[in-house]
């Protein structure tokens, strides 16, 4: 039987079918649904770890114990987990360990466009890249076996297009292997698992030897295959880009790579010798191309296709035509359509804070305070955008507090706020907060606590009291945690209460002490609360635009007054509080 599955669903299914028993992840688009789906299979343990490094260590621990494990994260998550990934390559494991990296070419929802294939070369481990959901399912099994055979973690790379596209998957008639009746025995082996320099020096040659053996394996694995066709052009491609290339070059000879590191040198030479021109089509970095050229093979690639952004069939076709690889029919109509679309100057629709979002009141108060606001990543990052315009840096998760501390230490005289979400705080906010105390800054840290990981679709976290597998658990109490570190000035505010929050913020900023404010208001989408919209009295409205400065979508500018769309509005009452003419009446 066949079933449509997204790439992410298929990875989870593949893990389940192949006897993975422990899964760990931290959410991040486009990876989130992998662990979400895996957690629902019977007989498995799956968790949201506080961050990716913890998730990686959890997976490594399970694999040390001989249990198959799956760890998943978005591309930038691997930066956080990298230290652990690198040692696991040295120690090796006992059970299979697969790390899924979900890259985001085009940055649909990411702060950068890094190409994580580079990690395979950097950390010296194998990487597989499926091209559709069926392969995603199968490759998990292949990766687990490879991991056990070669005693190494294996990376599986997906990209947004694969993770969020649905294609058909063969549903297995067979049940996954039954759980072993006995608990696993941990075999103590210090020489292998304790990476003091003396042991690590012994391991490094093993790693170099292993990657050579993996390159041998790559020569013969059926997931690297030549698909014969017209030999004028030979295309080398992997992953979703292979599918785009297939649309554009239906008759060409292909080398379809399922394993993108290490590469099969002999197979590549053989392929190159049978075709006239070798063309490497790959998104982002010239990762394959550079290695292939180093083998002495002449190849075209980044001289034709961009290094920036996501590919599409149209892009591959257009660039291939410009390079003379194919002839395309006249595109007069497309050009006319493009010109007309451009001339229409359609307004864009950027994501915005939801109506009723607690973050809005907080950013309104920040803007009014005039302070410098050093930020972080989450829904609240949208507070940077006009008209709120109240966040001045965003780099990566957990960066804001440290950056704020550094700006203060540089001697900047602005009053300084660091803001981050509750999930971000558990992810990587605690250490910089300790720095603020230890090295004596006066930063005011505001934790925007909406009591869930909202940005990535409402995942649980250590503060919610619920696990990924929906068990009730101990909730870490933010206030107690912060006080126990040694912060004396700690307050909890409701960001719907603009005056109250403004007063507390002013008090903290002027105190000359390191301090923490917890701005607490549950995410409206998650809490699913619906309050009644206020009404605007058009007689009283002076059309001053103050309420519009909240950047709240139900508030709409009419000819000479403002209206509220009662369907969109969530009745948070911020506009009622800011209206200087008292024209907005709560109901």
């Amino acid at each position: 039987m066949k079933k449509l599955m997204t790439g992410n669903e298929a990875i989870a299914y593949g893990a389940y079918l192949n006897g993975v028993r422990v899964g760990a992840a931290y959410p991040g688009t486009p990876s989130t649904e992998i662990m979400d789906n895996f957690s629902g299979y019977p007989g498995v343990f799956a968790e949201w770890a506080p961050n990716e490094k913890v998730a990686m260590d959890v997976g490594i621990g399970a694999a040390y114990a001989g249990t198959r494990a799956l760890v998943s994260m978005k591309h930038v998550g691997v930066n956080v987990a990298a230290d652990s990934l690198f040692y696991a390559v040295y120690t090796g494991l006992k059970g299979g360990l697969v790390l899924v990296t979900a890259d985001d070419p085009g940055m649909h929802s990411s702060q950068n466009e890094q190409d994580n294939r580079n990690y395979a070369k950097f950390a010296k481990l194998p990487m597989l890249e499926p091209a559709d959901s069926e392969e995603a399912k199968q490759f998990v099994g292949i990766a687990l076996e490879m991991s056990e055979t070669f005693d190494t973690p294996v990376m599986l790379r997906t990209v947004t297009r694969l993770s969020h596209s649905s294609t058909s998957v063969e549903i297995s008639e067979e049940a996954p292997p039954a759980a072993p009746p006995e608990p696993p025995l941990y075999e103590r082996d210090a020489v292998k698992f304790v990476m003091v320099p003396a042991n690590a020096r012994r391991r490094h040659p093993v790693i170099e030897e292993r990657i050579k053996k993996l390159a041998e394996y790559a020569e013969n694995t059926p997931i690297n295959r030549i698909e014969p066709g017209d030999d004028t052009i030979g295309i080398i491609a992997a992953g979703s880009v292979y599918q785009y290339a297939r649309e554009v070059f239906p008759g060409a000879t292909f080398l379809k790579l399922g394993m993108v590191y290490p590469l099969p040198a002999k197979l590549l030479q053989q392929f190159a010798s049978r075709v006239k021109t070798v063309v490497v089509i790959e998104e982002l970095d010239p990762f394959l191309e550079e290695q292939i050229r180093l083998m002495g093979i002449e190849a075209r690639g980044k001289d034709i296709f961009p290094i920036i952004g996501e590919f599409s069939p149209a892009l591959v076709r257009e660039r291939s035509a410009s390079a003379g690889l194919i002839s395309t029919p006249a595109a007069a109509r497309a050009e006319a359509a493009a010109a007309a679309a451009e001339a229409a100057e359609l307004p864009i629709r950027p994501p915005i804070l939801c109506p009723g979002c607690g973050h809005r009141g907080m950013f309104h108060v920040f803007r009014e305070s005039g302070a410098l606001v050093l930020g972080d990543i989450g829904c609240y990052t949208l507070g940077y955008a006009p008209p709120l315009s109240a966040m001045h840096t965003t780099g990566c998760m957990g960066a804001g507090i440290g950056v704020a501390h550094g700006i203060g230490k540089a001697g900047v005289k602005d009053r300084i706020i660091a803001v981050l979400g509750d999930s971000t705080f558990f992810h990587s906010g605690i250490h910089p907060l300790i720095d603020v105390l230890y090295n004596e800054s006066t930063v005011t840290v505001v934790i925007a606590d909406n009591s869930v990981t909202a940005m990535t679709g409402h995942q649980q976290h250590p503060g919610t009291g619920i696990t990924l597998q929906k068990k009730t658990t101990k909730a870490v109490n933010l206030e107690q945690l912060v006080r126990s570190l040694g912060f004396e000035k700690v307050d909890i505010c409701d960001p719907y209460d603009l005056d109250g929050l403004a007063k507390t913020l002013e008090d903290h900023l002027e105190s000359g002490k390191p301090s923490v404010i917890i701005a607490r208001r549950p995410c409206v989408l998650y809490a699913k609360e619906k309050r009644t919209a206020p009404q605007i009295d058009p007689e009283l409205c002076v059309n001053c635009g103050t309420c519009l400065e909240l950047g709240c979508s139900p508030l709409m500018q009419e000819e000479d007054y403002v209206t509220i769309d009662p369907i969109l509005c969530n009745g948070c009452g911020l506009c009622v509080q800011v209206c200087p003419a008292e024209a907005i009446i709560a109901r």
Partner: protein
Amino acid sequence: MKKIDILMAGVGGQGTILASNILAEVGLELGYDVKKSEVHGMAQRGGTVESHVRWGEKVYAPLVEQGQADYLLGFEMLEAARWPLYLKEGTVVLINRYRIPPPAVNLGKAKYPSEQEIESLLKGAGGRVIWIEGTGIAGELGNPAMVGVVLLGAVSNLLGGAEEVWMKVIQRLVPEKFLELNKKAFLAGRALIIS
């Protein structure tokens, strides 16, 4: 087997995801190879949602190529207007007559295009534009969020497939307590266009 490329465009919360799931499953039921792709990263935050569904003998890319769409289903007028590059001569364009003004329009800083502008933009690219009172019909039936199912009903006569096939898939994908209403919405849409 002829390939059929379908694009859907809307705003987060309008039900494009359910509609594209139904379309994909109906394709499978009809014996096509099917691929589907969505971009919905920031959809919950009121952003744009796009969905590609491709039916064919053998489908490689999950993305519809520019100039190749056979159908465009616009769940919202402005979102429909963004796709002329994907149309070709004769692309069937169904537009739900409904606006969700983006922030710049609310703030009076940008203009929402008129129906005539949208229509001529899409017609100029080869589209056969059909306006549908989808949100209106769904609202009268009790839930404006069923607009996607109304649009599917409307396009179902053109796409083919027996009514039972569509109903079977709807039955499978729509939660029990909304099922009857959604079936009604589908039939209301189906009555709008006779192929």
